[in-house]
């Protein structure tokens, strides 16, 4: 299996407004030395709560947010070193699906034009070829060609997400970044979109960088999973290893917090792992382990020394007391 994307020590910093008239400008590290690999035809899920840096990490990977340091090797070439013209050429290989299918489609454009626009911008094919491709894509994502001249507001949320997917596929990308693609949709509609994404991955050999806060969704779509907390990856593993033998206390807490049909009030279900409080602010992260304030296993060393990702079975985990 060939490596499509190899991200090494990616760090993203945001400079905040000056504190006071002559005060310093605090720097927030939203993503801290994140490394991961994505193989051709596979899906890597990045899970975490809001503020964990999962979206920023993905956006920095495809250069929609500027990285402070690190490398993003895509098909053997460091995307962070490319000039604007070269990067624009690479963009046809890397496309994006957003969370909100209402605000990510131009309300004044017909959907055929929305789906065709990437080909116009990249000057792919003749006008006839572009039109034919739009019709093909519409069928591929489960829409009818007679809907091509409609406007976005004439579609439901799930159909709009299908339009977003069709638009992302126009340039024949190799990598699709999906940023919470189903979290704005009703559960019954989520299943439709998740099945579509699974089918497209198998049929077209696509690779996904899949961002979600929903562990059930990630389990369904992704082959590998990385768990982020406060800008760092705290655990990374193949799907089964992560869900069946989570090693990091935060991963265990996430799994224990996610509602599941197997847990019944009638059978006296009590949550096995409870964590208190909210994620801390990324402006002043704790010196040691970022999770220390909420961790049931925290010891003195956790406050002083930042744990590094180390292998433990199939998992890689950043914790002084894993398991």
């Amino acid at each position, binding site marked *: 299996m060939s490596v499509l994307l190899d991200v090494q020590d990616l760090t993203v910093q945001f400079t905040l407004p000056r504190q006071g008239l002559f005060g310093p400008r605090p720097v927030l590290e939203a993503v801290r030395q994140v490394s991961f690999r994505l193989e051709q035809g596979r899906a890597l899920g990045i899970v975490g*709560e809001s503020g964990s840096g999962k979206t920023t990490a993905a956006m920095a990977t495809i250069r929609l947010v500027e990285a402070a340091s690190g490398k993003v090797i895509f098909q053997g070439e460091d995307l962070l070193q490319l000039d604007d013209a070269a990067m624009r050429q690479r963009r046809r290989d890397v496309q994006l699906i957003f969370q909100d299918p209402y605000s990510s489609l131009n309300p004044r454009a017909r959907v055929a034009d929305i789906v065709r626009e990437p080909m116009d911008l990249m000057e792919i094919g003749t006008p006839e070829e572009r039109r034919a491709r739009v019709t093909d894509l519409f069928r591929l994502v489960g829409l009818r060609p007679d809907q091509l001249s409609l406007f976005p507001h004439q579609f439901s949320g799930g159909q709009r997400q299908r339009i977003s997917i069709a638009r992302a596929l126009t340039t024949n990308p190799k990598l699709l970044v999906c940023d919470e693609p189903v979290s704005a949709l009703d559960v019954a509609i989520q*299943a439709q979109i998740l*099945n579509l994404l699974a089918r497209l991955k198998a049929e077209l050999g696509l690779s996904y960088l899949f961002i979600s806060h929903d562990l*059930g969704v990630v389990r369904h779509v992704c082959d590998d999973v990385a768990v982020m907390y406060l800008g760092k990856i705290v655990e990374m593993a193949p799907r089964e290893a992560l869900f069946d033998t989570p090693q990091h206390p935060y991963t265990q807490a996430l799994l224990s*917090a996610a*509602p599941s049909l197997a847990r*019944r*009030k009638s059978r006296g279900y009590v949550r096995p792992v409870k964590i208190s409080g*909210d994620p801390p602010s990324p402006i002043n992260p704790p010196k040691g382990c970022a999770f220390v304030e909420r961790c049931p296993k925290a010891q003195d060393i956790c406050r002083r020394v930042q744990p590094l990702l180390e292998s433990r079975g199939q998992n890689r985990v950043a914790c002084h007391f894993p398991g």
Partner: protein
Amino acid sequence: MSALLEIENLRVAFNTRHGEVTALDSVSLTVNAGETLGVVGESGCGKSITALSVMGLIPSPPGRIAGGAIRLAGEDLTRVSEARMRALRGAELAMIFQEPMTSLNPVFTVGDQIAEAIMLHQKVGHAQAFRDAVALLDRVGIPSPDRRARDYPHQLSGGMRQRVMIAMAVSCRPRVLIADEPTTALDVTVQAQIFDLLNEIQRDFGAAIILITHDMGAISEMADRVAVMYAGRVIEEADADDVLDHPQHPYTRGLISCIPALGKGDTELREIPGVVPPLHRLGAGCAFAERCAHRNGRCDSGKPLLVNHGHHPAACHAVQEGRI
């Protein structure tokens, strides 16, 4: 024994530009003290309208209660005066909303807002009410509550704001607590904390809880009984275990099997095709018919009634005829 809260054949209509539409149609539900009723369905199924009807908060016009009764310990809330409703609301009936930031007043401290709710219903002065507010904040698990009571809503995290809302809702020990998607805006670890808190509050106060959600997982963890709603009607109702283990209506079956479960991957999810139909286009037949795999001629001609066809009540012709 009659139930604490009894909704009987409730019909709620709204005037829209498509004419009058029926948002709730013969909805009947009951909740007992100390029990959690989960109300589940997709957006637009009438879950929130049911909650607002109980609270007497249906905007009128354009909405009106067109029939039926809502009885709290025997008293019909659809017939009481607005003054009586104001006295009940907050004291006997309380509600927690989805987005805590928009339900709190940004220019008052959270302690003052809870104290105001207490002073509205109990004969106590501000100093005592504020002390009670601090005790409530402590009860809902807010650290250093005497300091936090002097904070404004924007100084609190989303999870803490929802705790403040819960503190305010339980300040007068209501007999019925309605939670309308209380954790949709929150992260999953914080959602777990709020669910645990609601369960503790129920054990302490013995309140009846109506939990409105679209998440069958939340139903499983929280509910004793479940009502499934679709297009303004209750289409299935039973104990949580019965609904989750033996779903009858094709819509309930779909809702359960379309959830990507934590315990398995890769298998194709069962889909419910299409979307909830708009209320002004509901015909004479079953509202779910156009999305249903078990549809036949009878489904298009008449609405199925919520009756027991064997296991527990479900409103479905195919279940009644033994076709599924």
